């Protein structure tokens, strides 16, 4: 690599910001940071990456035993184990991505305080690290789903759209939380509680049809995470299961959870952009 011969004229030093800098550098930085993060996290221990695969599977094992052997309110739900595992894996992605992102800017303090680079790279890399895990975990899900007798269906092709939507939600939330955490240190415990609420407020432990009241089912579907999980069940495992639109009572009502995703995303970008120039000083 050489310094480019055709040097541009003097450029103004504008100070740090959320996005500035070329697209290539932006991408290279995000991927490098995520890859190194991945390395630090999983290649230090003996079992290394295996833990990452085992974690959702073990949680699945426990929940599966409890909710099919002891508490049988999901009895009669078709392919419930597959639904449970898919739900856990998708939820784990969201919770890992946002959970890592909350403290990410502070964790990278040594970089943020010393080098100018687009600040948004930091929470983005945290989400990307979780995304690497999601990809491998989805491999495990695919094997399991096929093994339990679910046959591939053309709607599987639409599934990446749901992952994309989930990713967007995770990025928006991460931007908001990571910027908030710089100022407010109680964001982390608060977010842990919210994550728990989201877990129980989504059809993971239970199939949506076991919820008795219709209004409760509709309320649950307003949670974007719940809507995404329900739709992935419909597309991925059991086409006869109600889609998110069926549960909420009409496709047009899905605009509400979709609107929440967009709103969180815009809020996250706006707030992060606003805070980015001063993050190095606030740390």
């Amino acid at each position, binding site marked *: *690599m050489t310094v480019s011969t055709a040097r541009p004229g*003097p450029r103004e030093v504008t*100070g740090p910001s959320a996005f500035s800098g070329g697209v290539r550098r932006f991408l290279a930085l995000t991927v490098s940071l995520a890859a*190194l993060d991945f390395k630090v996290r999983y290649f230090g221990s003996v079992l290394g990456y295996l833990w990452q695969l085992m974690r959702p599977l073990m949680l699945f094992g426990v929940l599966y035993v409890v909710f099919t052997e002891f508490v049988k309110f999901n009895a009669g739900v078709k392919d419930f184990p597959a639904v449970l595992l898919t739900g856990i894996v998708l939820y784990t992605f969201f919770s890992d991505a946002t959970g890592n992102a909350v403290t990410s800017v502070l964790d990278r303090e040594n970089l943020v305080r*010393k*080098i100018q680079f687009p600040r948004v790279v930091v929470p983005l890399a945290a989400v990307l690290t979780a995304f690497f895990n999601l990809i491998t975990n989805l491999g495990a899900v695919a094997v399991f789903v096929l093994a339990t007798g679910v046959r591939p269906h053309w709607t599987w092709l639409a599934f990446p759209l749901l992952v994309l939507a989930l990713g967007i939600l995770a990025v928006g939330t991460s931007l908001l939380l990571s910027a908030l955490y710089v100022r*407010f240190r*109680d964001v982390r415990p608060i977010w842990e509680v919210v994550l728990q609420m989201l877990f129980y407020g989504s059809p993971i432990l239970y199939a949506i049809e076991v919820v008795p009241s219709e209004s409760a089912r509709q309320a649950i579907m307003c949670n974007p995470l719940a809507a995404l999980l329900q739709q992935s069940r419909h597309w991925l495992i059991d086409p006869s299961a109600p889609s998110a639109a069926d549960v909420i009572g009409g496709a047009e009502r899905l605009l509400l959870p979709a609107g929440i995703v967009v709103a969180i995303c815009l809020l996250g970008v706006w707030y992060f952009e606003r805070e980015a120039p001063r993050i190095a*000083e606030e740390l």
Partner: protein
Amino acid sequence: MESFTTTSRLEGRLLAFSDLTTTASHRVREPSAPVPAVSVEDVAKTFRLPHQRFSTLKERLLHPTAARSHDKLTALHGVSFDVAPGEFFGVVGRNGSGKSTLLKCLAGIYRLDRGRIAVDGRISPFIELGVGFHQELAAHDNIVLNGVMLGLSPRAARERVDEVLEFAELKEFEDLKLKNYSSGMQVRLAFSVMIQLDADILLIDEILAVGDAAFQQKCFDVFFRLRDEGKTIVLVTHDMAAVERFCHRAVLLEKGEVVDLGEPKKVADHYLALNFEPGAPGDPAAFGGERGGDGSARVVETWMEDEHGARQSAFAQGARCTFGARVRFAAEVVDLNFEVAFVNAHRQNVFVASSAGEREATGRFAAGEECVFSVRFDNALAPGRYALSTLITRAGSGDAVVDRFENIATFVVTGARAAGGLVDLPRELAIERVAPR
């Protein structure tokens, strides 16, 4: 002379330096000056210091309207200067004068409150102790990460790794996590990363203050090379000897404002004058209370010179050097004793030179007069850092202390030979075969 080679190398360096100074000053004086590499115009930066450092959301929600009190700290105020391409530019000032803030503004880490900074060329990250390293990662990964941070492609960054490690002399520690590096090793790595990344403008903060004498020497060598290559360098330091040796120009900051700009010698003298103001933060008496005496005479400046009369902060072992102190008299005094002690890192007085045993009378001085007390010696001190303490007493009257100044200055003795003794005296060593008895 036993260390003849060292001395001549030092001489060679000094010659090379004076060449550079001449060419540089020509370049600076040229009327058709090129576009400045760094242009700073009327820059101001204020920090808000909230009284409660970390507020919580809970507090914020409970007291939404409560005004959060904070102090304002003006770190920079109306700072302007230009740095020409290829110039070696020094930034000096006392602690808290805004030097590091200025560097962070140049590096784009802080947003300016007012003013404008423009740079022409790629700028390095500013380097200081532990620059942007990830402590859990090996050196290899850190080098790549830093390269990408600076705008190299990941591939180009990976290609640089070997050069960087080679220069830092850390090849064998390639796979060691950074947390297991000593701070000296980290600085070496940071320095190496920075200079191997082909930035046009380098920002360097205080690296001379850390690292051993050998590393300082290496830094100096690199500085000369970078100057030859026409890199623009902005160096923040407290080492006035370095400023005078390397810099084409320097700026002196005080309380966030430019108080002097120009010839390094002039700026360095101004800096020292600021430091030796009575009660100034740089005055050891102010922070350690290690200054005493009745004050009828005061040491106002000390220095160490090499045999050519140039002030230095590092000396090769074996070289001839001179300690000097300028003393100002506040009252009429007669026959004072002047003494200087060289104290090593273990607080041992390795060498004490006193006028008491040398001569009967040192003479009469009136109020307002000044004298220079100097000690010339062949440097037999073992390699390491030495602190100087001066003592002026009234002879023959129970040694009443006139001025006692502990740790007034420090300097470094460099040398490859460290046998472990406190001093390294000139000697003749022989091993001869003799007939067994």
